[in-house]
Structures are given as C-alpha cells and as structure tokens.
C-alpha cells in the first residue's frame, strides 16, 4: 500500500494521473506497436541477441557496431549530414523572405492565398512529386547527380521551414518595429536587432523540422541520386533489402539515431535552452 501511494505521488508530480494517462494511452499504444517495439527489435539485432538464422543468443556482441563504423560507412554518414545541412541552410535562406512577406507584408486576403499556395503541392503524393521532378531534372540533364538530390530535398522540405517561420513571425508585435523606428533604427537595423532575434525560435523549429528528416531521407537520394549519391537512408535500405544484413543495418540505424539525438541536444543547448 505504501508503495502504491508513493507511486501515485510521483505520477501526479510529473503530471501523469487519471485523465492524462487515459488521454495518453492511445498514442502510447500506437507508438509502442509501431516505434518502441520495432526499435527494441532493431536494437536486439544490432547487438546480436537475435543472431543469424533468427536464433536467440545469450551473449551480446559489439561486432556489428564495429562493422558499421568502418570508414566507408562513416563517409556515407558525413555525406548525409552534409546534404542535410545544405538543404537546411538553403531552405532557411529561401523560406525566411517568403514567411516574412506572408506574415508581415501581405494583406489578409493575399496571406491566405499564399499560405494555400505553400501547402497546395502537399495535396499530391510525395512519391508522385518526386517522379515529376525526375522528368524535369532528366530533361535538364541533371538526373542522378548530387545537385539533383539537393534540389529535390530543398523542394520537398521548403514548407517545413516556411510554416514554423510564418507562425513565429505572424505573432511578432508590430509596435516593437515601430518602437525601433522611433528610436532611430532604419528598417534594415530594425530587422537585424528586433525581427531576426525574435524569430529565432521559428528558425530553430524550422531547422530541426528540416534537418532531422533530411538526414535520414531515402526516397529523394534513391530516386534522384541513383547510384551516384549514397546516404544513410539508401545505405540502410541496401543493407536490409539488398544484402539481407539486418544486423549491420540495425547497428547503422542506431548509430544514426544517436548522432541525430546528440546533435539536437547540442543545438538546443547552444541556442540557450529556448523552449520549442
């Protein structure tokens, strides 16, 4: 009884009690079936507990991780991070003026129209759009190149940068800009000293939303890069489905997850622990 009481106390302190548990239940079950359990299985593969011929081994091994950490694979990881970084920076540079215009300059009517224009392509399947891009890029003689992959990634991820920036800029109190003008700051200085720092949270959110999935992206490098571009996504695919080496593939996936996690923690900490 005493134990139960303490347990309830802890649960209620972290905000988990009656109603909230009930509300959390469906997503937790969903995540358990489609993420936590597969993740655990992948983990069991990666340390060899599920061994060759699907036999359960008692003794775990790090050999698959050592295999996955070979220089060739690390080059692929670096390549993926590089493509994701270029995609993120390009998206930020393209998206900021767009979001700024929609949020602060456009009339109310135009604003809605432009937001629809940003979202509209997403009514069409991602795969179909990438196929469409294939024909365009091949007519430009760019298909199956590094540039094709970067163009495809920017095209696909742009709205994930525009939307958080728009939401953030739209909240910006315009009287802050006016205050800045009356204090002698030109529009350019006002942008640098007020608008930009105040939209930092939107920038962070957008960068995370683009960078994380871009690093693990599979379809774009697979379809637009062909054999000329190898990323974590395509390599994992090959390991699992071409070479049937689930063990090494699982180890690579887990390394990837930890790299992303570590980068996220450093990134958010560096920016100053701003809540997103």
């Amino acid at each position, binding site marked *: 009884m005493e134990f139960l009481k303490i347990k309830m106390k802890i649960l209620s302190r972290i905000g988990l009690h009656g109603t909230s548990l009930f509300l959390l239940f469906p997503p937790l079950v969903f995540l358990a079936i489609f993420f936590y359990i597969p993740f655990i299985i992948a983990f069991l593969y990666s340390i060899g507990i599920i061994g060759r011929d699907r036999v359960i081994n008692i003794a775990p091994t790090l050999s698959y991780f050592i295999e996955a950490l070979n220089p060739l694979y690390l080059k692929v990881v670096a390549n993926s991070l590089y493509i994701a970084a270029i995609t993120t920076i390009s998206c930020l540079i393209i998206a900021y003026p767009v979001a700024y215009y929609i949020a602060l300059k456009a009339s109310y009517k135009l604003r809605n129209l432009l937001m629809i224009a940003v979202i509209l392509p997403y009514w069409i399947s991602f795969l179909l759009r990438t196929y469409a891009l294939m024909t365009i890029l091949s007519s430009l003689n760019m298909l199956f190149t590094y540039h094709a992959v970067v163009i495809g990634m920017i095209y696909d991820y742009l709205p994930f940068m525009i939307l958080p920036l728009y939401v953030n800029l739209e909240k910006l*109190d315009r*009287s*802050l800009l*006016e*205050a*800045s*003008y*009356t*204090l*002698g*700051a*030109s529009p350019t*200085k006002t942008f640098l*000293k*007020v608008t930009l*720092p*105040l939209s930092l949270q939107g920038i962070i959110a957008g960068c995370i939303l683009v960078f994380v999935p871009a690093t693990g992206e599979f379809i774009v490098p697979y379809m637009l890069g062909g054999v000329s571009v190898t990323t974590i996504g395509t390599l994992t695919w090959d390991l699992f489905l071409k070479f049937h080496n689930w063990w090494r593939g699982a180890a690579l996936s887990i390394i990837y997850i930890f790299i992303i996690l570590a980068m996220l923690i450093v990134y958010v900490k560096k920016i100053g622990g701003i809540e997103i």
Partner: protein
Amino acid sequence: MVIWKLEYDVELINITKKYGNTPVLSNISLNVESNEFFSILGPSGSGKTTILRIIAGLVKPDDGLVKIKGVDVTFLPPYRRRVGMIFQHLALFPHLTVFENIAYSLRIMKIPENEIRRRVKEYLEIVNLPAEIYAGRRINQLSGGQQQRVAIARALVMEPKVLLLDEPLGSLDFKLRQHMMLELKRLQRTVGTTFIYVTHDQEEALIMSDRIAVLNNGRIEQIGSPSEIYGKPKNRFVASFIGEANFINGKLAGDEVFVCSFGYVKIPRVNTSLNGRAVLSIRPERIRIGLSLEGLDNIYKGEIEEKIYTGSYVYVKVKVSEDTFLKCLVPVVDIENLGLEEGMNVAIGWNKQDIIGIFED
C-alpha cells in the same frame, strides 16, 4: 533679412487623413510650445492616436504639413525625426534586458560604450529605478509600473525633440495611475522636454497638462488650458466630455435671459446669433443649495429626488420642474449641517457668472 524665432516644438498645419473612405482627421492645426505638457483628449475613435502617429512619422498624412522645431518633417521617416514615443502597450523589446532596451537608441547612434553606460544609469535614476538592481533584468521580470519607467527612460535617453505618449497609463490600476500621473508631470519638469500626451481620461489631462486639445470625430473642438477647457468650454461636446455638467433645454429671450421649463434664468450677455432653441450648461459644484437662499442672480425651488454618496461629496439630484432635474455637488459637511434628506423641499441657485455656457441645441 528674416530672423526666425522658434516658438513651437511641433506644428501641425491642416492635417487631413482618411483610412479608405473614412475620414479620421479633418483639417487639424495645432501648435505645441517648447517645454509644454500638451494633451490631446478625446473619446476612442476620435483620431487622437493618429495625430500622435503622424507626428512620429509612423503614419503619413494625406494632406498638410508637420513641422518639428520649425523644420518640415512631413516626408521624413520616423527614424530620422528623433521623436520619442511611449506606446500604449509600451513595446519594450522582450529579448533584451532593461539596460539593452534603454541603450538601444544610443547603440544606433554609435555612442561610445562608457558614455552609453553613464547615460543609461543616469536615466534609470531619473525614472527612479536603481541601476544596480534593475539594469540586468529582463522585461518580463518587471511589474507594470517598472515597465512603464523603462519605456520612459528608453525614449528620453536619446534626448528627443519631443516625447509622444499614447495612453501609457491605461493598463495600470487606479492607485498606480494616480502615482504615475504626478510622476510624469515631475519628470516633464525635470527633463524639460515637450510632452504630447494622448488620453481619453479627462482627469489625466486636467491634472498633468499645461494645455489640452479636445478632439471629437477627427476635429479639434477646443484648445486651451485645463481651467479654460473646464470653466469655459466652447461647445456642448466639450462641456459634456470634460467633467460633469447639467444641460438645460430652453430658448433665449433677448440676450440676457433664458427661458426654460422652471422659469427665467438670468445669463451673462451672449451673442444673439443663437436665436431660437439653446442649451444652458452649469457645473454641479456651482449650484448652491439651501433651505432658503438669497443674494443670487437665479433662485428656484425644488425637491430632493436622490442623494448619491461619493466620499467627501454628495451628488444631490433636485427636481425643479416636472421633467427637469439638476445635479448639485454638495460637500458632505453641508449635507449634514443642513440635514438634507430625500423628499425635502429646498432652494437652489446660482449667479450668472456660474453658467459655463449657452450652446446650440
């Protein structure tokens, strides 16, 4: 050779502004003198904030000229005008500390860092915020009154040609507002900057201002000192908007007599352009009340209909005819001395100079 004498800090000449088809300001002209505490008083929607924004350069007038210290600035952007502004919701930068907020304009002017530190400290002291305690705080760590002070320091530190204040006390509670009113007045005298203060609160305007412009529907109804605006309102709107007033319907009979439902009223000589129906206005505190009265120009009989207690004064509503009631403001002491009760018959009266005006109906 013409020698210019700079008399005015701010001059508005025939300013007109429309939003779409709605006229907001029609032909506004006013002059604000140097070192003056000038208020623009009007109900919401009267266009008073627009006037302020036009002076700041945040809004362009459709027509007319804006001059600051004798220089035409009509087409100058706000950041070239050096006009300080306190916004209604203060508009302090939430991502900067108190120090950085106040230093903002000085940084833009590229003033040396040690000079910036000295001036920020000086202005924090002027607004009664000790720099050691508050300079490093974030804006959201301050109370409403403290934020107000930071906003004032931020605007004054750049030594603006004029300081514009857009209803800055609106969001404060009663006590703090009373306090900040006196504080603002003191501050204005200390720094000697011209203040242009926009408000819908007649009390704020009367207490702080050297002169007041009363605005209604985008037009200036009257400009004058608080005592002129209160004691000699130019029209019915001004009389009703500032302070309490009785309005008695009737008509002029000659140029020194007014006829109404309870008899004749002797009035100061008026211009006879007002023939026909007119409204006579008198302040409640100008009406004498007693069991019997004598020696006044106008004396009437009435019955006390209602007493409303407000603290040190009592509003006494006196019925003087079937459909006319007059409000009198009587000190509690007099009520007690005379033993006035509801339903009693009393005498009320006033001299003709007590009448604040006879207006068009």
